[in-house]
């Protein structure tokens, strides 16, 4: 094997080594973001008086400031702010801050996905459910949510891919994920150019995105099938 090919494979192995951390960040952030998004969506749908204003402000802030600023605010700002009430979180792991920032950011986008999917199902579905004697929670669980889930799947998939790409910013606060691995590789291996490493990294992200995309596409197919079966 030629030495340059060996180099490329070497970098690949080292970058892939950190893929689990990136995926872990993504999955955990996605989980918390879904919770936040659901909460915000319910507040905005039900129009709770004071909470509605706060939720709207949160959405506006999150969607019109760069993620990087939010990440820095959470990582540098939050511990400083909590010191006022004598809570010291400086010793927390960096990963916690990163996941907090990503959840906070993605939650805003997911809440709009959930809200629009809920609204897209339409009021008449609710009325139909009430007319056969279902309660609100029954209608929600049996009629509305299954349909809303299907509607939201493509958007959800897009947001998951966005989130995966967003995790590439975690290296700015010192997390050694795929991007953070660059420094280590450079430290160990002076002969290799930065260009090579970033090409490898982009290929890894690209492949991961394509896998997620096809998974979401598969899920869409599976759930749509069930949908058709039910309506017959």
């Amino acid at each position, binding site marked *: 094997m030629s030495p340059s090919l060996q180099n490329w494979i070497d970098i690949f192995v080292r970058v892939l080594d950190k893929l689990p951390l990136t995926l872990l960040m993504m999955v955990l952030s996605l989980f918390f973001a879904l919770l936040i998004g659901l909460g915000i969506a319910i507040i905005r749908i039900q129009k709770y008086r004071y909470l509605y204003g706060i939720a709207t402000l949160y959405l506006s802030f999150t969607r019109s400031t*760069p*993620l990087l600023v939010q990440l820095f605010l959470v990582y540098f700002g939050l511990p400083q702010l909590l010191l006022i009430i004598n809570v010291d979180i400086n010793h927390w792991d960096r990963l916690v801050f990163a996941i907090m920032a990503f959840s906070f950011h993605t939650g805003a986008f997911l809440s709009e996905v959930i809200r629009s999917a809920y609204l897209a199902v339409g009021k008449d579905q609710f009325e139909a459910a009430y007319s056969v004697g279902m309660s609100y929670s029954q209608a929600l669980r049996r009629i509305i949510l299954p349909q809303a889930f299907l509607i939201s799947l493509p958007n959800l998939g897009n947001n998951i891919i966005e989130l995966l790409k967003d995790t590439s910013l975690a290296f700015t606060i010192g997390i050694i994920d795929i991007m953070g691995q660059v420094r280590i590789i450079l430290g160990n291996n002076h002969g290799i150019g930065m260009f090579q490493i970033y090409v490898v990294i982009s290929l890894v992200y690209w492949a991961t995105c394509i896998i997620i995309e096809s998974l979401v596409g598969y899920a869409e197919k599976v759930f749509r099938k069930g949908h058709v079966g039910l309506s017959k």
Partner: protein
Amino acid sequence: MAIVDFKFALEQVPAVLKGVPWTITIAIVAMLFGLILGLLIALCRIYKVPVLNQLSILYISFIRGTPLIVQLYVFFYGVPVLVDYLNPRLGLHIDADEIPPLMYALVAYTINTAAYQAEIFRSSINATNAGQMEAAYSVGMTTRQGLTRIVLPQALLIALPNLGNVFIGLIKATSLAFAVKVVEVLAISKIIANDGYRFIEMYLVASIIYWVLCLVCEFILFKLEKRMSRSETRMGLNASV
């Protein structure tokens, strides 16, 4: 020493505002060139131009499947490699070190945003009724005339909200320009914050600046959309009379 020093934050606002022109330059230039490039790519895909169509699909997939910051790094470290490769072969004498960082940023952001704009144009051109083009043919227009006079004005109107989102996305994306050594709003805030250990103040200042920028853009886009849709309803009325 107060934990959150608002006086300090206020004093630093003018310094951070010096980064705003960079942010806006990158966003506007990338947007304009992205519009042209995106439109060309969209047309390649709609008319299924051989080779170019496949290349466009690959390009769009790559741009949308990798983080912007990785693209910036690939571009920033890739251009010198390319220049080294091309110089002896083409007899050029370009010094990669002399290319200004802003140039890197402008080109890289254009390449990035063109992929997103291409998809927007593709969907909006497809959204205009196919009969429009047939009608244009029926009165003797060529394909180019039909596109520029009939289809594109309508497609642009449909695309406007999405293009607005892309522009706001670009403004936020400029916060990553530190990767190609451009010192804009966030980079300035970071430098000041590191100097005085004033993180929360400086990042709040930065976030408010971005927030205001985005709100202003949103407002302008809202006005623009209203204006353009007004002209559309007027056109619709004239046609129906």
